[in-house]
């Protein structure tokens, strides 16, 4: 019960964050020195064309009313119309978002599945060579720029070893399109197409590794310090006294209470992960939101830019809600008390 209340509070809070975010975005978009309509149309457009577009975008109304319209649109999930593609921003984003989602989910998977065990290993052999190795791996993965790692992986796996494709999401002219969820790996399973699944995986691997490295390093670091904290707790000593074998102690009694800090950090750093996804997508020509975002940004297509930032924010908020839920599942104290502390 307390947990439901906790989640409800988090949901309400998330809505508030989104409203705040919409204001920030709106202010930035309207802080443009100059006229968005004029900028979008270019210097060759006539005064009538500009006025026309202003009217269409509602730029001729008072600023508060403009924000009201923007918010009303958002509430209906309507992000307005892109000036560049002349399509609803919703449609543009929907077409590209699934690819970004797939990349980000694969990234989180890799970061957690590799990072957490690395942290456990480092904590178990604290101050000995495995710890030092993990530390070096963690530092290097944290300081290697994603775009640079992406390039290196491309050179290594694509040009030197010729084992993995370097651009795109599926082979050109491949007769498969993800139509159910938009995620290649899942839709290929639904459609019973193991070949498409394998191809999808091959294309996904390099970008996901490039994007996951930084997060994986963080996960390993934080899991390590959190495990070391827990290992000095009385209840670990007690389970030792009762003869619970070491691997059960480490993998069950120590790991589970240590899981909350890495999860929390995963949520907090999710924003910078989305940012890096933009760069990685560009390097691997991944057909996600980044290419669209960057193109619209260069074209000063304000509605589309606002849409992209807003969707990134919603993504962040949703991921953090999922993490709140997971934290509750992992730690009964959160469930029972209905708060994080």
């Amino acid at each position: 019960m307390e947990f439901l209340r906790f989640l409800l509070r988090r949901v309400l809070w998330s809505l508030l964050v989104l409203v705040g975010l919409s204001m920030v975005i709106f202010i930035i978009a309207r802080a443009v020195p100059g006229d968005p309509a004029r900028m979008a149309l270019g210097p060759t457009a006539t005064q009538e064309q500009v006025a026309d577009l202003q009217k269409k975008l509602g730029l001729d109304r008072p600023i508060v009313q403009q924000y009201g319209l923007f918010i009303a649109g958002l509430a209906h999930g309507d992000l307005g119309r892109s000036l560049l593609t002349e399509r609803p921003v919703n449609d543009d984003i929907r077409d590209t978002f699934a690819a970004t989602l797939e990349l980000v989910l694969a990234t989180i998977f890799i970061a957690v599945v590799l990072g957490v065990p690395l942290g456990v290993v480092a904590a178990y052999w604290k101050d000995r060579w495995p710890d030092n190795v993990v530390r070096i791996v963690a530092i290097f993965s944290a300081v290697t720029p994603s775009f640079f790692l992406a390039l290196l992986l491309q050179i290594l796996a694509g040009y030197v070893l010729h084992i993995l494709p370097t651009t795109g999401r599926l082979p050109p002219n491949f007769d498969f399109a993800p139509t159910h969820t938009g995620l290649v790996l899942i839709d290929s399973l639904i459609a019973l197409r193991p070949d498409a699944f394998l191809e999808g995986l091959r294309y996904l691997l390099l970008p996901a590794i490039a994007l996951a490295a930084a997060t994986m390093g963080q996960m390993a670091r934080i899991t390590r310090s959190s495990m070391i904290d827990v290992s000095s707790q009385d209840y670990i000593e007690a389970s030792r006294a009762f003869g619970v074998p070491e691997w059960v102690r480490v993998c069950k009694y120590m790991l589970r209470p240590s899981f909350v800090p890495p999860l929390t950090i995963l949520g907090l750093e999710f924003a910078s992960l989305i940012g890096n996804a933009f760069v990685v997508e560009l390097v691997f020509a991944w057909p996600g939101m980044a290419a669209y975002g960057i193109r619209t940004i260069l074209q000063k297509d304000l509605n589309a830019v606002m849409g992209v930032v807003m969707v990134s924010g919603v993504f962040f908020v949703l991921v953090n809600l999922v993490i709140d839920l997971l934290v509750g599942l992992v730690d009964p104290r959160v469930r029972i008390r209905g708060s994080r502390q």
Partner: protein
Amino acid sequence: MSDELTLAEDAPRLSSAYQSWYRFSRNPTAMIGLVIVAVCVLAAILAPWITPHPDHVGAVVNFRARHLPPSADYWFGTDNVGRDIFTRVIFGFRISLMLAVVVLGTAIPIGTILGLMAGYFGGWVEIVFMRFTDIALAIPPLVMALAVAAVLSPDLVNSMLAIAALWWTWHTRLIYSITRQLRTREFVEAAETLGASKFHILFREILPNCVSAIAVKTSLDCGFVILVGASLSFLGLGIQPPTPDLGTMVASGSAFLPDYWWESVLPGCAILFVALGFNLLGDGLRDLYDVENVR
């Protein structure tokens, strides 16, 4: 007489500084970090005098020397218009470090003051500041910088503004959590009982206890700000050519992969090098000050 007094008072402080230095210098990662940072900073400052081809910073074109591999003449090879990449990398450090100094120079004071106030005053100050921080955390700094670069124009000042506009949140959160723990500690309560001003308590009692955490965070952040800045210019939205910038160099060099690999790989390694230095330094400081939860 007065000289002796000063000496006596200074003696313990000196020796504790020496002790810190002793512990620091016994920490290999911290020392490596410090050396890397020192090398980068010195190289950046002395760039015009120590680089082999300082004139290659501008829009020099020398088609006879284009795409040369690394050699004794050109340590890092040359780029597609025949400029020395090593020279441009050293000058690139200038931009990267300047970016870090300006962003953190703005973000840390703002973040610290907001964090101190939110943590100490509580109540609505806490609610408003921390909620605002939460909102800012939801925006990817890189995307924000992109948006700002789009709305204004893609140049160095605007990217710095955009990054700084989001970076303070991390410092606010850090200082906030420390201040909240300190708020109920005896020395703060003692100062309150003695009627010390809020200003005194915030800046004389609480702030000194945050300094080590800020130092660690700053060092780690220098590396990360440089990474974000490089990503921005890699996307073509940061520093505009011909000014030598590491991210831009990686981007323009990547067009000539894999044959002329040095044109993007070596500047990329340079970014990694400087970011690594700040990270190792921060890691070492964290061990030294024993502030485990700063990241």
